[in-house]
């Protein structure tokens, strides 16, 4: 988990910012329907971030390879972690504010 988190920290502010923006929109308009829109925004931004890291931070993968993580495993695990954090934030927003 620490390995996944250390990779996730590369773009934590960006992806958490999008999750928070989604929660803010839900609170502002009082509708959970924004989750569907934010879901697709998160899919697209995760793909773009993945491409960015693949192209511009290629060499850091050797650190993770040595820890037994292939690129696919690393991206899949961080994507799942990001989606989990976003779902938790959204559920909290719905429970508390809507």
């Amino acid at each position: 988990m620490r390995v996944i988190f250390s990779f996730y920290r590369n773009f934590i502010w960006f992806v958490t910012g999008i999750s928070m923006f989604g929660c803010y929109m839900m609170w502002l308009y009082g509708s959970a329907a924004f989750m569907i829109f934010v879901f697709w925004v998160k899919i697209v931004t995760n793909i773009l971030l993945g491409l960015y890291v693949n192209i511009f931070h290629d060499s850091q993968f050797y650190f993770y390879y040595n820890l037994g993580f292939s690129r696919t495993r690393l991206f899949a695990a961080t994507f799942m972690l990001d989606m989990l954090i976003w779902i938790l934030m959204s559920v909290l927003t719905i429970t508390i504010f809507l």
Partner: protein
Amino acid sequence: MTDFLEFDSIELAFAGRKILSSIHMQCKVGQIVGLLGRNGTGKSCLMKVVFGSMDAQHKHIRVNDVPLGEDYLRKRVIAYLPQENLIPGNVTIRMALDIFVTDSKKAIEVFPQVRDFLDFRPAQLSGGYRRIIETLLILFSPAQFCILDEPFSGLMPVHIETIMQILSQAKVQKGIIITDHMHRHVTTLSDKIYVLKSGKCYPVRELHELVNLGYLNDL
């Protein structure tokens, strides 16, 4: 029986241009194997193929005659120090040691100066200290075999001596493959030497063969 890493039948080509052909090498635990070759002969490619981060048209990699099979990266049998920086910019030395090394205390004992840099990020270290720490990470990782791509590059003599001492101690429990253009250090350290030339791998028994193989002009 001493554990050994062996690879053969490695075939690698880019856009029809052959880089590696019918490569065969063996590295036993307790040995340092030196790999020499001119620029562009495919040393780094060979190391990446053996490590498992680069695909080849064909490869056969075994430990104790047992093939490593598909996706052996996750088994952590082989560790690899790339030419480039190993530690990502957002990871502190303390964190790298914690997640990378099985016994970080032992690693710190070997190179006590690392204590001064535990809360540093790689960009805050000099190139020499960064390379020593990266080499430590690889050598103290759980992998039984370590591949080091240019561990001496850009280092001052004192740091080179430190890495050579660390390597000599580490080989007791590891099999180490090393490549570097500082051939005197490589030949001093190595129990066995290979030269890569025109995509083929040649074992070297006497140092004058380095001249015959065109790696050196003279000794």
